[in-house]
């Protein structure tokens, strides 16, 4: 199976979607990582006398309405967004994938029905609405935002892994494993999971970008990360009444969200093209 295509790095670099997506993602992940050790200015320290300054050598992107350095805010905001989205997608995968595999192993049975109908139930709510509902009940904050975004990721991964696993369960090599006496859990873990990993990675990249959007949306309505933690969504919300005074305050975090989401989507597209054997056939 894995011999159908190769993993030569050059092939990746020739894919424009993957290349552009990887660069954009790397920039923002890089900013987030650097902010762990260093930011141009301390964002917890407000200096009101230096508020709404235009971009200058001291403050490359200018300052916000509290006199905080905007570049530092964007860097810490990248950290917040990426951490929340990454953990949330992780939560979704860790719960969703085993559920999907279990459903596939018991395909047609009542466990399968139960799991998939539960997934349909969660899916029936628009993702952001569900997240708002959860944070409204449990209170605003980064942790609850993670839980909320994580929950709407569960059915995505459950469905995907069930669909991927179902087609594999009819294959000969799985049959061989069953004849050899392996149980459903072991087959799922040893044979099915590695074969749907590429599907999951691509989907995770897409979900990651949706998670960033969701975090920004929650913060925008005040239900995400709370001050003094910087968040792109709240930066947008804070600056919207000042858009005529200092448009860069809204434009810069807006651009950061757009570029990160675009980068992750392109990355996901590129990864799908590169890892899907059928796409390989199309290219030839």
């Amino acid at each position, binding site marked *: 199976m894995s011999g159908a295509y190769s993993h030569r790095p050059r092939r990746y670099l020739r894919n424009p979607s993957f290349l552009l997506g990887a660069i954009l993602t790397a920039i923002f992940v890089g900013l987030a990582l650097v902010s762990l050790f260093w930011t141009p200015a301390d964002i*917890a320290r*407000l200096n009101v006398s230096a508020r709404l300054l235009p971009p200058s050598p001291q403050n490359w992107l200018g300052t916000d309405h*509290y006199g905080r350095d905007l570049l530092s805010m964007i860097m810490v905001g990248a950290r917040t967004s990426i951490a929340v989205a990454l953990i949330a997608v992780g939560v979704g995968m860790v719960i969703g994938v085993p559920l999907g595999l279990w459903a596939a192993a018991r395909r047609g049975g009542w466990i399968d029905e139960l799991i998939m109908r539960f997934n349909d139930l969660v899916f029936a709510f628009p993702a952001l609405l569900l997240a708002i509902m959860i944070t409204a009940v449990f209170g605003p904050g980064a942790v609850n935002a993670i839980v909320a975004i994580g929950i709407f990721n569960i059915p995505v991964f459950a469905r995907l892994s069930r669909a991927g696993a179902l087609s594999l369960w009819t294959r000969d090599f799985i049959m061989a494993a069953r004849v050899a006496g392996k149980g459903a859990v072991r087959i799922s873990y040893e044979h099915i999971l590695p074969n749907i990993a590429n599907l999951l990675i691509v989907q995770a990249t897409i979900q990651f970008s949706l998670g960033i959007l969701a975090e920004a949306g929650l913060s925008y309505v005040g239900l995400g990360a709370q001050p003094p933690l910087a968040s792109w969504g709240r930066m947008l919300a804070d600056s919207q*009444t000042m858009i005529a005074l200092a448009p860069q305050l809204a434009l810069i975090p807006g651009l950061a969200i757009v570029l990160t989401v675009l980068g992750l989507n392109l990355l996901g597209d590129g990864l799908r093209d590169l890892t899907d054997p059928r796409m390989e056939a199309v290219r030839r």
Partner: protein
Amino acid sequence: MSKRFAIGAAAAALLLGSTALAGAQETGATIGMQLEPPNLDPTAGAAAAIDEVVYANVFEGLTRFAADGTIVPALAREWSISDDGLTYTFTLADDVTFHDGSAFDAEDVVFSLTRAMAEESTNAQKVLFEDIASVEAIDPATVEVTLSEPNGSFLFNMAWGDAVIVAEESAGSNATNPVGTGPFRFENWVQGDSVTLARSDTYWGEPPALETVTFKFIADPTAAFAAMMAGDIDAFPNFPAPENLVQFEADPRFAVIIGSTEGETVLGINNSKAPFDDVRVREAIAHAIDRQALIDGALFGYGTPIGSHFAPHHPAYLDLTEQSNYDPERSRTLLEEAGLSDGISVTLKLPPPSYARRGGEIVASQLREVGINAEIVTLEWAQWLEQVFTNADFDLTIVSHTEPLDINIYARDDYYFRYQSDQFKAIMAELDETSDEAARNEILKRAQQQIADDYVNAFLFQLPKTGVADARLKGLWENAPTQANDMTGVYWEE
């Protein structure tokens, strides 16, 4: 050809529509408000938004606040006070009817005051009626109020929105269908959107110029800005985003009205909770705050620093800002003396208004400088009222006290900041017994000094009234001596 005709017709319809709108503006006004009132009964609710809709428009009291803050006659046209200061005899206005057609007389005054001071009363300001011993109707046009002890601010108390006169028949349903004696009668309330008032044809006094007044509720500052710019709203007397005022000032279509309010904005401290029961900790908090930075950052420079719980425009005002000046070094020393040199972690609970949310971020940052780590918790109004105001389940909070001359709240043991001082109560008792203006002002100064000395709360700034209105709409209040949008004197300039 037919398409062009359709476009022409649409354009004509648009033109017609807009002229019709412009015509309608001449007789009515749409006033923007950020908060929607929870009900419309000023005698049974503390929310400022209730008075902002109905005070002086739908309901009237015996006396009322004028635009400059003085107390002038309303339903009581004149009064006499006995020499011992205990008996007030009010002569009521003639030919007054409630909007439902029933007549107003002395019995309605007796009913309203008796109801407000009763044990089971739900009035939000029961303290206003505390000193009343009895209310008697001498004849249909005369009411005699006897006080248990002299109260120099009794006429002032009767001017509050909580002391308006209601009819016995309609008192129970005022929350949703307010019936008063004012120049406007209640017409319609579209929940979540607007309240409409219409001019009352039976008003006893001078009729107002406007035929209809619509109060439209727009919580979001950006939407409020857009609505003002689009002309959907004629005036926004308390515009929520001070940063937009610069733009309104630059636009000749609008007039920006900056006045003062009775809103003393404080960093409320829970005095009953450790470590805030130690005056040194409270003083440390007071010295940690840079008021000017706070005003610049939260209010874009509009606002006056205060050093006690008192409005700077009042004649008895005592400037105590120096006593709690910005001195982070002193804060650190005080915290050390209180045994808290390692710093403390507290919560800072913030209600929704932008002065609180923005002010909270700045205050938290300033407190962090001296080693007080304040975790911000943002709350909706209902949550704030329940957790902070009712249950005193908080460390710090930021809120503006918008009632006029409300320093007496510090004499209430169970008020949310839980300040308990016999000395302060003695000062308030003395104030109640004094009716001479100069003597009262002296006592008020001592009261300001007392709470400043005790560092009850960190006193931040006097909230400005930052209003914006269509430049042709005249007669709106510049200042806010009480929470109200008095529409009786508002008119369109030709």
